[in-house]
């Protein structure tokens, strides 16, 4: 059942990225370019999404467990640490360079564009190398 849930959720997510045109790097960069010909669309995409998630999550997280899973898998909400700040800062720089964040980059693969394929491969490489270094550091810390 979790596979069906994930498939439908993915479908909705991909449609949402396409309908809102967030797959278009020009639209994203024109949002970030407040000093240029500003296109505020992205703000309404996030606003529309949060208008659904904020009340929805509030209700869902009051339930003892999800429908098809024994528990909720939730990240920490507290402790703002240097890794969070540095990571978010780096992510923003990469996002601003190409106008692609992970969702739209992945969705853009369906266009068959080789440059987007390159972006996604490098993204996975960067993610994995960082994960590996973090694991090694954590392992050393417990010795």
């Amino acid at each position, binding site marked *: 059942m979790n596979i069906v849930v994930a498939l439908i*959720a993915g479908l909705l997510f991909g*449609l949402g990225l396409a309908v809102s045109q967030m797959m278009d790097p020009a639209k994203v960069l024109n949002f970030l370019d407040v000093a240029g010909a500003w296109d505020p669309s992205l703000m309404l995409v996030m606003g529309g999404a949060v208008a659904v998630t904020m009340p929805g999550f509030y209700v869902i997280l009051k339930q003892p467990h999800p429908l098809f899973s024994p528990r909720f898998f939730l990240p920490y909400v507290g402790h703002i640490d240097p890794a969070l700040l540095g990571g978010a800062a780096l992510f923003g720089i990469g996002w601003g360079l190409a106008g692609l964040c992970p969702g739209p980059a992945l969705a853009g693969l369906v*266009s068959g564009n080789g440059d987007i394929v390159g972006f996604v491969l490098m993204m996975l490489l960067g993610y*994995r190398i960082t994960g590996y270094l973090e694991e090694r550091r954590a392992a050393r810390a417990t010795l």
Partner: protein
Amino acid sequence: MMVATEFTPVSALLGGAMIGLSALLLLAGSGRIAGISGIVGNMLTARGADLSWRMAFTIGLLGGAAAWLYLTPPGTLELNLQAGLPLMLLAGFVVGVGTRLGRGCTSGHGVCGIGRVSPRSITATMVFMLTAGITVYVTRHLIGGGA
């Protein structure tokens, strides 16, 4: 290379709401957060049931995007790449490192984290919006000479 785009409030709100609904469904059904960097990035190391839901989500996402891209009239959705290959590769790498280190991207922190009113996610979203804005200002107006 810079392409002008129009403000599209209706499709933005509609698409945004669909992304929000996707996140609701995944949390209510499976208890998972719809953060793309984590779902896809951790696919490389996931095994068994943890791998299969990530793959199903990814296949769904690709299917949804493909359906809209190829079934709507030409020009409905354009992908105007704004960077050449070397910059795309660099940007992809930096996005990968940053989203792993910062534990999330626009969806995990921006849509789901803010939806949970998480101080970490609200902070992360403000930080990546700020550095992205500065990056665009530098590349378009300081180095690029404006337009």
